[in-house]
């Protein structure tokens, strides 16, 4: 019993000293979610990282053919994240905006992984598209997603299969606001 108590005390000391810490706790990047009814919810990166997450492959190509990745990416499916503000439904659009003044609009179908293009390693369209999940990514290759690459929060298209390349135009960097319209 005394040994167990000792272990607990040591564990508590380690935690208090910050040895086991939340890697997202120090990131000051509020994300504003806006529901279709106009209600807003502001979340920290740490709160987003505490939601049920998914993990898989991320690989994108820009409009001029520059490839980014492949990465092992982690995040929350956009469609799940928007349940925080009442959810998104058929016929509605999702406006994702970024701190640098960029905006991209997703359809409900795209959030379900439909109407998205995927390419093979030679940048040819795949005849049998892979299953794709648009996510709000907060980690890549096991570490918080860096600011210089578009973090701490970036939209990404996740696939279960490796070497599937997706459209980079959807990978919105520095996401700070997501609104449901319609």
């Amino acid at each position, binding site marked *: 019993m005394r040994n167990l108590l000792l272990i607990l005390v040591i564990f508590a000391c380690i935690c208090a000293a910050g040895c086991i810490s939340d890697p997202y706790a120090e990131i000051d990047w509020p994300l504003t979610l806006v529901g279709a009814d106009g209600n807003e919810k502001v979340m920290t990166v740490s709160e987003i990282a505490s939601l049920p997450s998914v993990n898989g492959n991320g690989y994108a190509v*820009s*409009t*001029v*053919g*520059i490839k980014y990745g492949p990465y092992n990416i982690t995040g929350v499916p956009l469609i799940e994240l928007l349940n925080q503000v009442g959810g998104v439904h058929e016929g509605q*659009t999702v*406006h994702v905006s970024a701190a*640098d*003044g*960029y*905006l*991209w*609009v997703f*359809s409900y179908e795209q959030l379900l992984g439909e*109407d998205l*293009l995927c*390419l093979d390693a030679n*940048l*040819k*369209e795949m005849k049998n598209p892979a299953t794709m999940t648009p996510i709000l990514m907060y980690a890549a290759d096991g570490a918080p997603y860096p600011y210089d690459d578009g973090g701490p929060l970036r939209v990404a298209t996740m696939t279960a299969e490796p070497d599937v390349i997706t*459209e980079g*135009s959807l990978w919105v960097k520095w996401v700070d606001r997501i609104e449901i*319209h319609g």
Partner: protein
Amino acid sequence: MDKRGYLAIGFLIILFTAGSGCISDEHTVVKVVPAGSLLLPLAEIEQEYEAIHPDIDIQIEGHGSIQAIRQVTDLHRPIDLIVVADESLIPDMMYREGPNGVNYTDWYTPFARNEMVLAFTNASAYADEITTKNWYSILSRDDVKVGFSNPTLDAAGYRALLVMMLAEEQLDVPGLFGSVIGESFNPDLIINKTDGDMTLELPVLLRPEGGSKVLIRDASMFLMSLLESGGIDYAFDYKSVAIGQGLRYVELQPEVNLGDEAYASVYDDAVVYLGFQRFATIGNKRTGLPVVYAATIPYDAPEREEAEKFLTFMLDAFAEGGTGYPAPL
């Protein structure tokens, strides 16, 4: 110590100095951000320039024209040379104060022009029939698939729409825009005409109906891939891109191809409003203008002097021309 001894010591000093990095092989990096449609000629120009100037490393990073400028104005990256496919973007986006109270730039050099064409392959439907005189009637046929790039992402995309708007009016073919493009959407895309002006307002989500004759891809390179695989029969793109890709193409009439300065007052009768404002720094209105390429050096270019030298070399190369180069002005 004899002569051989001194030589040996000298050799060892050189070896250790080089090994410790004191003799450096570092290059001066000149960062160039061009529009995607210039990547092919610029790769050649870069190679030629670096062969003459082995101490210079020209680093080319392609983007869409608006994104190219935003690397400086919105993302504040240290860029030495900006080269875009729409000369109007430089004054619109860069003739304003940056964080240091100085304009991002106050000048630009127009240097080449391009025109819209229809690219196709031997496998395209009616490939042996299409000409400058009949292209619009071929595109109107039900069994012909047409592609263009996403107007929100790529200037060639909204220019394809402007071409079709101008064609309906200038070639006097009522309903042409609808039969080639507009009727592939639900609801139809419709041109609003008032006093000779034409406007087209795009929906937030520009998605052709499944099985329709129109396909849209993010950018030219994906469209060209689709064309080569037979997914579409014809693609709207720049003439230099079609030539650079080794594709067949048909030229369009000068009053609709956005390539002739003499028709500038005709082109600006057509305006496209994109479905949403993708960038906070530039609106969603795109007016018909001749396609003119232009370059500028941002005020805070880290390697201004080297950028000026490369710009001069680049302008000479474009004036001389080559396969896949836009035509000199």
